[in-house]
């Protein structure tokens, strides 16, 4: 994971509530056994022409098809973003498309965890603040937003300023690009102790 602190970028507005992971990455791409190459399929059903999906002809109506948003590293969405299926492929698609952060009023639990594992910053702002940023990024695709993880703030050059909450441990991991398994293996002695105490408890053994 790459450490991240200050992110300054234009932002893509997608102000729908309850965007589910089936929309973020449709199931046909879950058949792949690789961990990379999902960026092209992000929002596939919305992003490409429904009549010719196999040719991947862009749907001109969809925001990601607008060349003015190209290279943007921030996605702004509605509440309960990425609800539904646990597929981490959704987080991979967002990250591999090039997004480093998502701003929304709320996120679904499993995605929240998956995003953290992939170094994606999730910024929870109030509905009003999200709406303000959506309006500015819609009106001007070149509108630039700055997310400062260390300071836990979101600002722009039109005087917008909001702070956001983030779990201190998650922040520490993002700032330092830390690998979860490595972190847990610091506690391997505690795991050994737990197992020596409970490993024989047949009521929690899957197979007896």
């Amino acid at each position: 994971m790459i450490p991240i602190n200050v992110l300054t970028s234009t932002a893509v507005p997608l102000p729908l509530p309850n965007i589910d992971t089936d929309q973020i990455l449709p199931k046909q791409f879950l058949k792949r056994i690789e961990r990379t190459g999902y960026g092209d399929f992000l929002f596939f059903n919305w992003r490409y022409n429904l009549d010719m999906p196999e040719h991947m002809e862009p749907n001109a109506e969809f925001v990601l098809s607008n060349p003015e948003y190209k290279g943007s590293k921030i996605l702004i969405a509605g509440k309960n973003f990425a609800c539904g299926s646990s597929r981490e492929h959704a987080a991979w698609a967002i990250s591999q498309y090039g997004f480093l952060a998502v701003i929304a009023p709320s996120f679904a639990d499993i995605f929240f965890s998956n995003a953290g594992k992939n170094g994606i910053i999730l910024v929870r702002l109030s509905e009003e603040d999200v709406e303000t940023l959506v309006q500015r990024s819609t009106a001007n695709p070149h509108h630039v937003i700055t997310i400062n993880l260390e300071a836990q703030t979101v600002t722009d050059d039109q005087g917008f300023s909001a702070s956001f909450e983030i779990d201190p441990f998650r922040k520490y991991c993002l700032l330092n690009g830390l690998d979860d398994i490595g972190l847990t293996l610091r506690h391997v002695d505690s795991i050994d102790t737990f197992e020596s105490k409970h490993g024989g408890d047949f009521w929690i053994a899957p197979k007896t």
Partner: protein
Amino acid sequence: MAAKTLFEKVWEQHIVVEPAGEPALIYVDLQLVHEVTSPQAFDGLRLAGRPLRHPERHIATVDHNVPTTSAQDRLVIVDQVSAAQVNALRKNCAEFGIEFFDVQDASQGIVHMIGPELGATKPGMTIVCGDSHTSTHGAFGALAIGIGTSEVEHVMATQTLPQSRPKTFLINVEGELPFGVTAKDIILDIIGRIGTDGATGCVIEYAGSAIRALSMEGRMTICNMSIEAGARAGMIAPDETTFAYVKGRRFAPKGEQWDAAVAHWKTLPTDAGAIYDRELHIDATTLAPAVTWGTSPGMTTTIDASVPTLDDAKSDADRKSYERAFEYMDLKPGTPMEEIRIDTVFLGSCTNGRIEDLRAAAAVVKGHHVAKKVRAMVVPGSQAVKRQAEQEGLDEVFKTAGFEWREPGCSMCLGMNPDILQPGERCASTSNRNFEGRQGRGGRTHLVSPEMAAAAAIAGHFTDIRKWRDIAPTLATEQILVEGGSRS
């Protein structure tokens, strides 16, 4: 000692360590593995040179990708990408020493079906799987959490999972369910009330006389869809119904160990006076058969109602979603639900692909025929369910009525296999998600109970199962006389 909830007891019994300022490290008793969310996790272990810590705490099967058309189609999967994923799991299980139930194994099935069927799912356990419907196993009083692939790898390497402590949410459903109202209708009603993010960050405990009266299968249907309300998990206190279900299964404790296990399990239910962070109380006697009308499980109504109008939307965001859903679903606001015609019926999935579901649907179907132009299919959730149904002659009932009788798998619940809806097709489905494109690009999904799906197949449109009492007189009796508790 302070009074504790079921969740708190299971949680505290599994804390490995709680480092200051970090999430708790929770021990994982069982990880279920399937082909879709595991290949990158196994690769991660190989790349890092890490061993899989406890192969005996893992069980694997194939379900999402497998064709359900015939045994032959499953042994040689035509779709090369699907075949590669299935083969990858075969190879990985052999390499890492995980017990694997292959496509035609007698114990194969949807991963959330086989855990309980094998007796691997037991009260008081912590269970994870790289699949959001892992919440199903909470029906046994286990803490069962759906996770992503990085977490799958984490559990493989450490047999633990870092978790921030969730909030507790009691949903109490009190009273006797009316005729024609099932576990599916209870959970759809709950999601309709609290919304798809109504339980985010929470573990729900379902309690009350209506829940206790349910069989294990009905309880699994409820816990299965906890994730559709955003919950981290759903749980139901273990009781005699639970013990009777687990007893004698392949991985269940035997003899003296059984007695000791039951004694432990009896300590798990929530203590009197324990406090939840949130509570919701529902009167079961007021419930009616549910049908979803939109593109989110929260967009639900009852069969005697109509598609809502924009005036029913509670906020601007809701109004936007409603407009989009009306268009995608091709529905006019205010249309009575009973007037909506269907093209396809899908009976199956980890939500409603169990034997009692098939029995209930067969009781409706018996003596009738699927409506003209309607394609109806039954996909048993597992090999065990398929065998049992065939022993009872349910396959013949369905086939005679014009249903397709399939091999076990996830099938049309998520369309990762050849079973998909065509653009514009409208489906009465017993599955769990009505998202845009979930069952096939452009497909339109309405979630219902097995009874309601069966009745819709015959009528050709949604129809109120409560009016079928005289037409299907066997329904009431057959449903109640099910082993291990009444279905209601």
